[in-house]
């Protein structure tokens, strides 16, 4: 059961790595083209700066989603350095459960935000509506929620194993 969810997580992870490469590559390319156009021909792509800024938004939040998968989010890890592995699992249940709850709330808030923006019908550039870029917020926050959920379930399963193992 957990296996299937983890396989989905892995596929999402691979997709994220590909996306990060494409987005970062485009970001560098467009930024450099903008500089060249500005300095050599004193012109520029009207939508170039907007595109680059939104690419930062996308790479940043996809990066944050990958960080959740790899457990690389910045945290203050004072307690776990000095405590037994058994207690550590208890703490992991608390921290992952809480992170799951907050991320779910953030995802909900992000959905409300995008919904508002759709109704506002604002345009980003070249006729692309703003929500088309902003949609990345609920998507990545949703992925983070899913990943904290996986971690939460895993830490609960671990305590079961410990009990039956004894």
């Amino acid at each position, binding site marked *: 059961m957990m296996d299937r969810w983890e396989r989905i997580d892995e596929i999402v992870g691979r997709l994220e790595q590909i996306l990060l490469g494409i987005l970062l590559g485009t970001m*560098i390319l467009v930024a450099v083209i903008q500089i060249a156009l500005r300095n050599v021909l004193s012109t520029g792509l009207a939508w170039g700066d907007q595109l680059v800024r939104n690419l930062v938004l996308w790479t940043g939040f996809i990066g944050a989603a990958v960080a959740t998968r790899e457990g690389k989010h910045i945290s203050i890890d004072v307690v776990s350095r000095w405590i037994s592995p058994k207690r550590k699992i208890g703490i992991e249940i608390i921290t992952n459960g809480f992170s799951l709850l*907050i991320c779910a709330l953030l995802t909900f808030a992000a959905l409300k935000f995008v919904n508002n923006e759709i109704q506002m019908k604002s345009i980003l550039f070249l006729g692309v509506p703003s929500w088309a870029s902003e949609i990345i917020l609920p998507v990545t926050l949703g992925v983070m929620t899913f990943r904290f959920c996986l971690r939460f379930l895993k830490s609960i399963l671990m305590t079961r194993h410990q009990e039956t193992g004894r």
Partner: protein
Amino acid sequence: MTLGLIILVFCLLMLLGVPLFVVISGLALSLLYLNQIDSSAVIIEMYRMATTPILVAIPLFTFAGYLLSESGAPRRLVRLSHALLGWLPGGVSMIALLTCAIFTALTGATGLTIIAMGGILLPAMTKVKYPESFSLGLLTTSGTLGLLFPPSLPLIIYAIVAKVRIDHLFVAGILPGILLIALLAPYCFYRAIKAEVPRSRFSIPEVAGAVKDCMWELPLPFVVLGGIYGGYFVVSDAAAITAIYVLLVEVLIYRDIRWGELPGIMKKSMVLVGTILIILGAALGLTNYLIDEEIPMKILDLIRAHIASPFLFLIVLNLFLLAVGCIMGMFPALTVVIPLITPIAQAYGIHPLHLGIIFLTNLEIGASIPPLGINLFISSIRFEKPVLSLYIASLPFIIILLVGLAIITYVPWLSLALVNTP
């Protein structure tokens, strides 16, 4: 009352190891809920922050930094500085100081320096018979030494959060950064002479060879800084040029990095960017709320009742920031603490740029201070030494750096002399 309880619970969760962005945005969500403001306000701030024009510099510089650290650049940099400085007494330790400083400035002060440079520099130092404890202390504390030099990531983040001009802050850090290195240098000379470290001969062919070896990387600092201060391009342009330049040089000219390795490096660097960005976004939501509620002014009144002089205020500020740097780490401290401190410090008449340099120097030192300074743990893993031995090894360096901090704090001229502001 409820507010105090909520803050207490969140602090507890933070110490248990809940990711900081979760703690911060959770706190923001509950404050919004208590005040019956819609929760999407947090997301609006995140979106606004993530699409700030200057923020483009962060992923681009970070990617370039990761590329450099995975390439042969650290080795070439050490070879060049060895050719130039190896003949001095204490030459090798000076090399370690300088190369670490340059490397941290380029890679953004994220512990990459200790990992990338440490592996080359520690054997180089112990081979010529520097005491091990001295070498470990030097490399541990040097991990953040370049933080005051442009284009380091913490400088950029400070400028964004505190809303000061990045090009001014870049210049402001130069003299204080040189001061810290100049204070450490005599100690390095002294230890080298005491340990009777052999010197190498100065050889012009070796210098020429080393220069030729890194002739493609040498122009980089000049292009970046010359471009910004010559008025040719802004900081985010400099970041884009750095990224494309490093990419071309390391992949096509030196071929240190194969095409196939690029996606992995891109991912690694963007994970770092993501973790910083999401904390920045969450913190902005929280601090905007706190500022609306005039919390900094309330803290200010509280402090004013006890501290009258700016002199005393600066001492308290330093102690507080050292603790914050040691416990919270660089990026969370930058994002959460700055908006609260800035109005208070201004009320005491401290220049925003000077405050920024004080702030960053504190974080730089705090990162090496026991018991929780992050550099100590990175070194412990990198060099496979117990953390306790690193506490002792880095102590002399921390004392010297604290002297530097005192000078930087009470001589604002150092931070402001090079900045052309009225």
